[in-house]
């Protein structure tokens, strides 16, 4: 007897991930036979908006391209502007930027803990990790004045210097998070329910991962050691001592383990950045923003975000606005082509689970 194929629409309202997108599933019983991703629910036209705003105004837009982790966008935007203009960034600012980016990575992974476990029905984990993420957001609030959208890394350096007492508070928070990671292990990684759900699910083929252009934890989860921070170091990553993990496997479990290790590396990086941070200027002031023009030229810059390599291609025609900014987030590959392929043959209950493990972020797809 042939099983009947049913169409199932997952989303578009937060289909187990942050942001809005829809997955149209053809299912037979509980098994997905075909998945089709539909985006278009979040299009705010960032790239176009930037063409109508001056070089400084655009910097406040880019953070909105990724809600959970806005900072790589700020970093990319600033670094692209600096590269075209030839603007020097003070050494102190570079360390502050690295610290900010790593704090953002920790915050993103803590949110991921919640999403990954939540989509497996383990809600306590999410309560804990999102609660602990608030301590990182407190640090951001002290540092930047904002909890979610920091608008802190800007062309020329960072917006304000570290506030008084920040270093101590940050180190205390790092100690706390590190301690909490052991609790998380007990609750999530040692949990047989999670293990059973995660192992052998959503397997990415190593060869295909390279062909598709998979990046970040999903790629490292296929055993390929690839990280912009190491392969093509920016800011001061080459002056810091760290390693990125890579493990064979390619399934949700491996990707989760990669993130588990990376969050420890990030804590280590925050400590190193705070420790090695030199004194001096934190900002190479830009001229009057209304009349700030940037010589004609183009630049491609990339940053390792929590979801993988995040690239910006920027063109200036010599005017006071960007002529073109092209944003290439990792979710474009992970959330569209890779996801459609991975979901085939999987269980309906694993769809959100797999989406989470890839770090799908719809606003990144629809810049």
């Amino acid at each position: 007897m042939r099983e009947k194929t049913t169409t199932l629409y997952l989303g578009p309202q937060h289909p187990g991930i942050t942001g809005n997108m829809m997955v149209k599933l053809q299912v037979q019983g509980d098994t997905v036979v075909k998945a089709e991703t539909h985006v278009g629910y979040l299009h705010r036209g960032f790239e176009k908006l930037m063409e109508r705003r001056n070089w400084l105004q655009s910097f406040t837009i880019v953070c909105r391209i990724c809600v959970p982790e806005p900072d790589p966008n700020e970093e990319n935007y600033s670094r692209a502007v600096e590269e075209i203009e030839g603007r020097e960034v003070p050494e102190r600012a570079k360390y502050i930027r690295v610290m900010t980016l790593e704090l953002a990575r920790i915050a993103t992974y803590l949110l991921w803990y919640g999403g990954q476990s939540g989509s497996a029905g383990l809600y306590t984990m999410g309560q804990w990790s999102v609660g602990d993420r608030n301590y990182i957001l407190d640090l951001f609030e002290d540092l930047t004045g904002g909890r979610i959208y920091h608008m802190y890394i800007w062309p020329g350096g960072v917006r304000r210097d570290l506030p008084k007492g920040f270093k101590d508070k940050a180190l205390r928070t790092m100690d706390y998070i590190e301690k909490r990671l052991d609790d998380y292990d007990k609750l999530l990684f040692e949990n047989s329910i999670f293990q059973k759900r995660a192992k052998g699910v959503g397997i990415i083929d190593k060869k295909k991962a390279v062909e598709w252009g998979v990046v970040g934890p999903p790629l490292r989860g296929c055993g390929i050691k690839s990280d912009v921070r190491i392969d093509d170091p920016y800011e001061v990553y080459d002056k810091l001592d760290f390693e990125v993990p890579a493990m064979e496997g390619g399934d949700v479990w491996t990707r989760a383990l990669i993130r588990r290790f990376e969050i420890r590396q990030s804590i280590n990086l925050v400590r190193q950045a705070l420790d090695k941070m030199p004194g001096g200027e934190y900002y190479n002031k830009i001229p009057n923003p209304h009349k700030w023009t940037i010589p004609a030229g183009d630049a491609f810059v990339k940053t390792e975000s929590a979801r993988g390599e995040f690239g910006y291609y920027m063109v200036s025609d010599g005017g006071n606005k960007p002529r073109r900014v092209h944003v290439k987030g990792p979710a474009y590959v992970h959330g569209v082509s890779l996801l459609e392929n991975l979901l085939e043959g999987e269980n309906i209950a694993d769809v959100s689970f797999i989406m989470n493990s890839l770090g799908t972020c719809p606003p990144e797809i629809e810049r």
Partner: protein
Amino acid sequence: MAFFDLKGLLSPVTGLKQFGKKPHTIMFPDVAEHASDRYRGLHFNKLEDCIGCGNCSTICMNEAIDMIQIAGYEGKKGDSGLRPRVDNGRCCWCALCVEVCPTGSLNLTKDYIFVTPDANDFLWTPGIDNKEKGEENISFYSDKETSLSDYSRVPMRELDGDVRIQSFAEAVLGYNEEEARKEASRCISCGLCTESCPDHMHIPEYINAIARENDEDALRIIYDNNPLPEMCGKVCTRRCEDVCAMTHRGDAIAIRWLKRYATETAKNAEIIKEIVNPEIKEANGKKISIIGAGPSGLTAGYYLALRGFDVTIYEAKAKAGGMTFYGIPKYRLPAESLEKQVGYMQSIGVKINFNTRVGKDIDFKEIYNNSDAVFMGVGFEKPWTLGITGEDLNGSLQAVTYLDVINGGGDMEIGDKVAVIGGGNVAIDAARVARRKGADVTIVYRRRVEDMPADWEEIEGAEDEGVHIMPQGIPIEVIGDKNGKVTGLKFARAEMIPDPDGGRPRPKQIEGSEEIMEVTSVIGAIGQEGDYSFIPDDMKNQIKIERGRFVVDENKQTTLPKLFAGGDSANRTADAISAIADGFRAVKAIEKMLMK
């Protein structure tokens, strides 16, 4: 994995140890969450510090800020009277408005809770509405260090004081291209300067053109309402700079020097004509006579000629420019510069009859009767005397006379020790000219140095050149020898008496403080007045004159319908740019009167 994974089952249960722990979350409003010291919350504006420049509104990428009129804040010089109103529904709290506020009046506060059932309530004027979100909560602010405004002026290169006094070479060297671009890029285009310029020149627009590396555009914009821009670029009293938004925390934009830069790029009259490329209307057959080729007369002449009028200017002297030629020394405004600008005017059809003194070489009544309209820009030629004994001695002279002779190419014997009396620009000019003639010069002024009406740059320039300034000195008598030659100046010291009404303090002579300064000449520079003897009495009776000036309406029209007046003889402001503004306004009125 074994089916019964004991560790995997028991490990999660350890989570129970968190049971009963204090939660991360807080229960609002029972517990208040205190935002950090740098929090970007709701706006607060210190209304008294705000100048309504609108920079916050311009930078806002969400267009969340409107500039609106607020009761109790009238527009005045340096304050548009407008204040920002924020649409909190559009705001993204990026705080760029704070970063670019030139006065630092706009801030963000720690307050972030605002609940209302009415969407219109989200539109509010910080500092007026919801004051309780106020000042003590300010958290995100920009000080001079963090502000994105550039408060430091590009310094102007000048000859050194000891080099300057060797000759009448221009002391100020002018910006080069790089310096001009840098200085122009500081401007935030708020337009407060335009309001305070008597001529309402399009200042932000031409500065913008310079910043955009389009000097020709800048020149065209400048010529729209000022036909003597190079003169203004060198010697304007620049009221615009006094109100510049940047002055609240730093140096005003060098508006005058930027204008100078833009105009100096056109090296001669032909180039000016080529760049400005004015549209000259077809001759309309109306005849306009202008008396005096000073700034107001030249301005009226230029714009009337552009509008197709037949313009003739009658000038008593051999050169055009009025006080700007005969009063301002050549180290400030070289003769060639004025000649270039006047030459351009002549090239578009302005006729100037030099050496033609109205009332002597030609009759005023004849001009009046043969013209469709007459504009008088006759200026103040006659110096005030000090009104003290000994003023008629040989060696006691007037600054305007002295400058007139020197600027006209002549010379006058002043000896080697000169006292100049007065504190205005004319006094400084006379002192600096005398210094160039090799004399040891002292300026005697009744009040304090900070009370001097002269331009501070002029005062500094004089001091650099070795001019002594003696403040709080009241001249009493010019002393001479038996041959009637000046030998000294008797003066007394003054103390400053505060004005109970809040005005500037008055000098009061200190009894018994009289001293005698040995000098070879005394130059008086305490003011001038007009000489209207060229107007026949029967006509003068019909022209209203008050306190030495023609009474004119807002169209610069006198009480005689065909007669217009501008410049010093009609305008108390008495500077070149006001004269230019008068001329420009009279042009519009004359055109309206004759072309309707």
